[in-house]
């Protein structure tokens, strides 16, 4: 969880630095690309994407293998717990599952195996928590719920937070703005759980207005029927609300921090001199200049939906990715944990890539050469 304003950072990165032209045979390719700077940029950006992808997947893989405690041992222990006769699992059992879970050979062999399966077969291997279902299927089963809950509440929090933050920055010094800012400073990091629990206590148990558990009413068949959607909404309301409340505060703070420097810009004074209405200045001049870094920030934060929100999911018994992840970790289901991590990496990087490719089109200022 980071606190400061650094959502804007992706733009800072595209600094202008003097770079000397190279000499050598690649000059001709360069000159071709030079005539299509956007293509050249896209190509280079894509290259970087591949490098980052490889790097992140590799680091993630080795990080897991570096966890203290022998994973194989844990794995075997897990097998033993499933054992009817309380005996040590036989060597045959161990060998079989070592192979099946890609735990054969030294770490490097395992790494190659993992990468090969991942890249060429898009296969993460079987999950342990739901053997022999492939890990990617296990993840995919809970992903839609998490995306539905966290995704929607993230969007709501973002939109409201952006608006509130812009206003708080704009009306800096005014009572309302200062109150909301200070509230955000103070409450921005209250655990979701705390909020969620209070909401449950008040709305579900005391007032009985809303359901406290599950994602929908199990009496209603899953489908696009109005009653099902209504039940989804009812069940999702409290968990989403707890996420939205805190999310708004965090976006408010970062938006406000971005907003304040913009308020000192000459073009805002100029807009004021033009006699424009404050609302117009706020939306067309101030917000327009800061929303892109927030879009980038949002894109990145969406990637972290893969983490799920374990506590809220557990409290509301929501069938999301967070609880799957925790189960996987407690059972040391490597394939599933790595799968979640890998998916998060791929999605964050891809979102970043797409945004970076789109940004030059959205923001005239972005200089897409390096």
């Amino acid at each position, binding site marked *: 969880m980071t606190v400061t304003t650094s959502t804007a950072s992706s733009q800072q990165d595209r600094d202008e630095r003097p770079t000397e032209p190279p000499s050598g045979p690649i000059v001709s390719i360069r000159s071709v690309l030079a005539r299509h700077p956007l293509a050249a940029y896209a190509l280079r950006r894509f290259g970087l994407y591949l490098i980052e992808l490889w790097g992140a997947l590799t680091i993630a893989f080795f990080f897991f293998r570096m966890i203290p405690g022998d994973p194989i041992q844990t794995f075997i222990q897990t097998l033993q717990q499933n054992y009817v006769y309380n005996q040590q699992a036989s060597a045959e059992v161990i060998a079989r599952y070592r192979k099946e879970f890609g735990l054969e050979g030294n770490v490097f062999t395992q790494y190659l195996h993992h990468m090969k399966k991942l890249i060429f077969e898009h296969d993460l291997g079987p999950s342990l928590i739901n053997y022999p279902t492939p890990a990617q299927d296990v993840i995919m089963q809970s992903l839609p719920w998490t995306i539905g809950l966290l995704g929607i509440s993230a969007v709501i929090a973002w939109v409201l937070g952006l608006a509130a933050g812009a206003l708080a920055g704009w009306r800096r010094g005014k009572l309302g703005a200062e109150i909301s800012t200070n509230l955000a400073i103070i409450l921005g990091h209250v655990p979701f759980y705390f909020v969620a629990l209070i909401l449950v206590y008040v709305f579900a148990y005391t007032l009985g207005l809303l359901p406290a558990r599950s994602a929908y009413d199990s009496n209603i068949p899953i489908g696009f029927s109005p009653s099902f959607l209504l039940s989804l909404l009812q069940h999702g309301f409290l968990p989403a609300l707890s996420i939205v409340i805190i999310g708004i505060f965090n976006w408010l703070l970062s938006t406000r921090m971005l907003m304040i420097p913009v308020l000192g810009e000459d073009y805002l004074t100029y807009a004021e001199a*033009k*006699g424009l209405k404050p609302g117009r200045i706020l939306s067309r001049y101030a917000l327009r*200049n800061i929303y892109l870094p927030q879009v980038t920030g949002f894109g990145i934060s969406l990637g972290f939906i893969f983490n799920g929100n374990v506590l809220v999911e557990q409290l509301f018994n929501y069938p999301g990715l967070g609880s799957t992840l925790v189960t996987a970790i407690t059972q040391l289901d490597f394939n599933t944990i790595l799968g979640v991590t890998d998916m998060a990496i791929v999605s964050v990087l891809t979102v970043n890539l797409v945004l970076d490719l789109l940004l030059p089109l959205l923001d005239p*200022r972005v200089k897409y050469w390096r």
Partner: protein
Amino acid sequence: MSETDDNVLELSGLEVGYATSEGMVTAVDKADLAVRRGEILGIAGESGSGKSTMAVALLRLLKPPGRVLGGSITFRPKDKAPVDLLKVQGQQLRTLRWSNLSYLPQGSMNSLNPVMRIKDQFADVIIEHAPARRSEIDQLVPRLLEQVGLEPRVARMYPHELSGGMKQRILMAICIALEPDVIVADEPTTALDVTIQRVILQSLADLRRDFGVTLIVISHDMGVHAQLVDRVAVMYEGKLVEVGDVRQIFKDPQHEYTRSLIDSIPSIGKEAS
């Protein structure tokens, strides 16, 4: 009809200060100045003498820690009743702006919204102040651009695609979009090189010729004043030390400071000893 009706602006006893950690610093000290309708008035003075502060106060754009400490500014727009610029507020102030009083800022580099097309930055003022002319925007913008010597295609560009000189001219074009009574130009040519400077000065002269606007041109470059203005007001440490016809100022400076100002102009043909 009194003589004052000729004056589009009258500053009397204007006093502006900045609150600093060392107390209030007076930047404009009891300035009295009358601006005649249709003239080009130059404000000269060394850096820090308070030229910009005066302009900003007049435009009501003064930001904290700056504060108007006293005086009044009477403004007589063509089609409206005279007002004290220091007293108007809210909607009344907004309507005065641009349709009567517009501004050519000092930092032209950053005065255009970087994420809006040039055309939209024109449209803004028109939609705000002359909604009736909304439909004309497509014809109006190219015409205005042409006025300052720019091609119509510039309308579709973004500020960062333009040079400093072009931006400055765009700001000028936006200034005259609603044919205001008064334009305050703060250092319109500083930071531009000489060739561009000359073009800008030409365009400024054209503005008065074509629209009859009153121009207040702030510059520390005496050459600019010599080339462009009708009258010069000389500022020194926040005070207006001398106001006079441009010829008088150059040929027969009254105030000591004005004299030293004129003397110190290096110029071609005046070689060092």
